[in-house]
């Protein structure tokens, strides 16, 4: 009996699950838009509703542009700033509540919880103001890989966006403890605490409490959202994390600003003033221009079915290829005693009613004779 199909036995089909990680480096020039030619279309998209700003890796009108992340800000009703916020105040409140509702959830009374500094929702400090970086699913895939996140900001007090100011006084935000210490009490999945460090002595307020630095935000791994506290851009005397002395409080730097870390030299706003008096997209502009780079690794959970297609010695040694025959005689055989030879380039996986459901191609023809056997391992990922 001739046959061109071989039935797959139960032992020929195996399911497996693997985690695939990709490194995602995002350079500051993409985020700030400075890599683009002046006056060309921008890779930063603002919307008429003004609720957030989107960053692409290429001018967003181009079909080849990829969405990288969105930036927005919000503040809770308990924020000291909310009462006096006069630009997009309702929207900032709405955004904080929206993000908190999704990422932190509700308490027993149904009220929206606020972002918690150490993830212990029962007590402790809350982040009343939040800066949100929402990374696109294209980059995050299934989740951010724990312990890989890094984000660097310039906290130069002058607020100018020149190259020197950008590289001055850089703080590094990481989730260093994420790989072995993360929280699970969020309705949006697992999250880790973000810590800030700086290699420049005095940039941060105190000596490091421990190797991980000072808590400054939260990173939601499955949601792909980083929540930063506005305290990152404030000196300690103003309730922030930056060193007093380096920023004019008792030191000799930037004395005219009296410890003010100016978010933009044009507006002369510090972060609180920015949140109160600037639009969301304006604040996003200021934050983008302080960003040095972002790096993380994503995770894709691959569920695979592996089909072991076993071509035994007696299998598939002849071909139905029309060039295989010349007047019905097999070309590759000179005499009846010669071994048949065929060449495999393709593996087809079929349903019970012979529908071709999947196909796999070998990168080069594989010689098949009665003297050899192959197990072709075809993996389909879902």
């Amino acid at each position, binding site marked *: 009996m*001739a046959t061109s199909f071989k039935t797959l036995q139960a032992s020929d089909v195996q399911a497996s699950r693997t985690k695939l990680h990709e490194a995602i480096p995002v350079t500051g020039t993409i985020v700030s838009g400075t890599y683009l030619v002046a006056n060309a279309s921008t890779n930063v998209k603002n919307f008429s509703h003004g609720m957030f700003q989107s960053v692409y890796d290429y001018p967003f009108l181009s079909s080849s542009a990829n969405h990288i992340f969105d930036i927005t800000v919000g503040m809770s009703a308990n924020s000291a700033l909310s009462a006096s916020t006069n630009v997009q105040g309702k929207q900032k409140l709405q955004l904080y509540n929206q993000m908190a509702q999704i990422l932190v959830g509700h308490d027993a009374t149904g009220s929206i919880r606020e972002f918690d500094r150490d993830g212990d929702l029962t007590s402790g400090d809350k982040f009343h103001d939040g800066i949100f970086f929402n990374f696109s699913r294209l980059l995050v895939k299934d989740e951010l890989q724990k312990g890989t996140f890094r984000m660097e900001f310039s906290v130069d007090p002058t607020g100018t966006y020149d190259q020197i100011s950008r590289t001055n006084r850089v703080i590094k935000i990481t989730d260093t403890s994420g790989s072995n210490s993360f929280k699970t009490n969020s309705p949006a999945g697992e999250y880790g605490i973000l810590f800030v460090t700086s290699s420049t002595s005095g940039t941060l307020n105190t000596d490091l409490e421990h190797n991980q630095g000072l808590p400054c935000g939260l990173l939601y791994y499955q949601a792909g959202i980083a929540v930063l506290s506005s305290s990152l851009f404030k000196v300690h005397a103003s309730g922030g994390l930056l060193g007093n002395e380096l920023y004019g409080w008792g030191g000799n730097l930037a004395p005219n600003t009296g410890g003010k870390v100016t978010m933009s030299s044009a507006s002369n706003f510090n972060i609180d003033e920015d949140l109160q008096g600037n639009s969301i997209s304006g604040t996003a502009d200021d934050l983008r221009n302080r960003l040095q780079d972002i790096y993380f690794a994503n995770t894709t959970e691959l569920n695979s079915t592996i089909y072991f297609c076993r071509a035994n010695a007696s299998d598939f*040694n002849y*071909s139905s290829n029309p060039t295989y025959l*010349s007047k019905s005689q097999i070309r590759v055989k000179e005499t009846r005693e010669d071994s048949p030879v065929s060449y495999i380039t*393709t593996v087809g996986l079929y349903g019970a009613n012979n529908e071709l459901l999947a196909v796999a191609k070998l990168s080069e023809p594989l010689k098949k004779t009665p003297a050899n056997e192959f197990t*072709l391992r075809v993996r389909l990922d879902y």
Partner: protein
Amino acid sequence: MAFLDNSGDIILDAVLTDTGRKRLAAGDGSFRIAKFAVGDDEVDYTLYRNSNAAEGVHPSGSAYYDINILQTPVLEAFTNNTSIMNHKLVSYVRDDLLYLPVIKNNDTISQTVDKNTAALTDIPVGGYLVTTDYTTSDPDTFAASTATSPFRTFIGVIRGNRSFATAGQFICLDQGIDNTDLSIQKLDNADALRETQFLVEMDNRLGQVLSLDGNTVARPSFIDDDNIASYYFSLNSNGQYFAAPDGQAPGVAEFNRSTNETSPADTFSVIGDTNGGRYGTRFAFRLLAAENLQTSNVLFSKLGGNTASDYVSSGAVFRFIDSTIRVTGFTTGYRVDIPVRFVKKI
């Protein structure tokens, strides 16, 4: 599709076909891989340089016979399920086979349109014209046309309208070993080289398979996402599509060695010649044009066009769609494509 990188280790590039994705999306459990086959679509065995090769044996010896084949670049996988796995590798128990069977369109029993005596242009050479509606299928329509027109000679015209279905040509295929080195014999029923199952694939928008008596419209096993219908016929359960002595197809000459010992060849066989050849099975079916082609011109506008005036000396202009009927021996894997042109008189 690009070529696969063959500079390093052998890699396997696997994708779901469009039909596979459709079945997966259906979520009804119809996506279940049950078997596999292997193919060699890219391979040209004429490059195998043994003593059978036109170029002659490779001067460097047998280790180099297949050097050109092994260097063949392989394309990435197509996702269209009907565009790939065209030629499957086949398993036979025996390793000492020197001849394998083929399938040939029998243009002696059911003459193709190019068999007309007049030289015709713009015709499916080696294939058939398939009339789609009553008027085009009715011989009276062309009573005044040139005597050598296929619509008068009835050569190479399959009447696709049900009313005339049994009057026209049909598709007939002979299977067997087409080599005259072998004496004329009928392959034994138990011979692995004898094909007893055929797969017919055709565009379901254009037509269906009809039994030779014109009474039964065959049911496709499945219709894929590209409207290609696949029909399976086996000698055991569909004997009416196989000629005697294997089956009972009405109106199709028996496929057997003649009892005349001095002239044992089957009169109508296209396998072998008067001196040699091994006869397998003879498979035949009719075509029924789709209702949509009979009543509407939309598909003609979309997929086809109009012929020149006085097409094949008929005195008429036709709408037409060119297509292919693919017939594959299910176990032996050999495949033939028969060109057809669906026509409708304007």
